[in-house]
């Protein structure tokens, strides 16, 4: 059974590891998932899980993923906001699969997934 003892061992292991992360800084990508009632009801949780999973799998250290409250567009939930290269991209009607594609095409390779973006204006 997982115990605090085991967590202590994990801490020691992590503290002894040299930090080989690429330095987060100006090139950091910030991703926010709307987690208000309507977002949750529309499926924001699997979207968030897919983003975290992709980030772990690809060891993306200059990506920060967090949740946010009401974005004010209930009918477009689940919504994912990506802040990258000084711009804000709003992805709407997201699913776990779309989220993985955004991670791959946009966050990693720099090509926004235009088909999922909220139509401008």
């Amino acid at each position: 059974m997982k115990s605090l003892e085991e967590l202590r061992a994990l801490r020691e292991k992590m503290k002894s590891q040299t930090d080989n992360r690429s330095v987060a800084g100006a090139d950091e990508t910030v991703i926010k998932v709307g987690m208000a009632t309507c977002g949750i009801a529309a499926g924001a949780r699997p979207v968030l899980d897919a983003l975290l999973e992709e980030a772990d799998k690809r060891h993306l250290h200059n990506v920060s993923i967090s949740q946010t409250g009401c974005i004010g567009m209930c009918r477009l939930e689940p919504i994912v906001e990506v802040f990258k290269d000084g711009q804000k991209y709003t992805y709407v009607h997201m699913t776990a699969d779309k989220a993985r594609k955004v991670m791959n095409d946009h966050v990693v390779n720099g090509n926004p997934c235009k088909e999922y973006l909220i139509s401008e204006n």
Partner: protein
Amino acid sequence: MRELALNILDIAENSLSAGAKNIQIGLKADTQRDEMEIRIADDGCGMDAEMLARVTDPFTTTRTTRKVGMGLPLFRFSAESAGGDFSVKSEKGKGTEVCARYKIGHIDRMPLGDFGGVVLQLITMNPDVDFFVTAEFDGEKGVLDTKEFRAVMDGIPLNAPQVRVFLRDYIQENLVTIYGGRL
């Protein structure tokens, strides 16, 4: 919402918006009595009586000018449509306690769903808030306390990938197995 776990997440989000620093989540089931209870308590900003009346029952209030949310009403509905009851206690400046009870076997009771996943999300996405989570099932009890984790981790964040993997298993073994993973 199709899973009570999603209601739990939503209600805990209220606590987070209320500036809570400590959030307790309690899940309790007694199969002999066919009862289960979900309790979320926080030390956030709380609400006054007028506010409380309005947010738990937005349809009978005369005030329509201010926006009312759906989170509390949905949670209330989940309990009252499943042979249970619902209560919110709140005190301005002190905190809030939301409690929903269900008849486990009621035909309209929604399944609990991915309780473990919701707990993992809450404790890893909110580095400044401590969670105390309990699962009780027919006398068996499991506990998770993020204060203990943070004391051990000594500054390493709970959302570090390796820690997250540990926590996922910890939740599974200490909370989810208590009720057998399906409720």
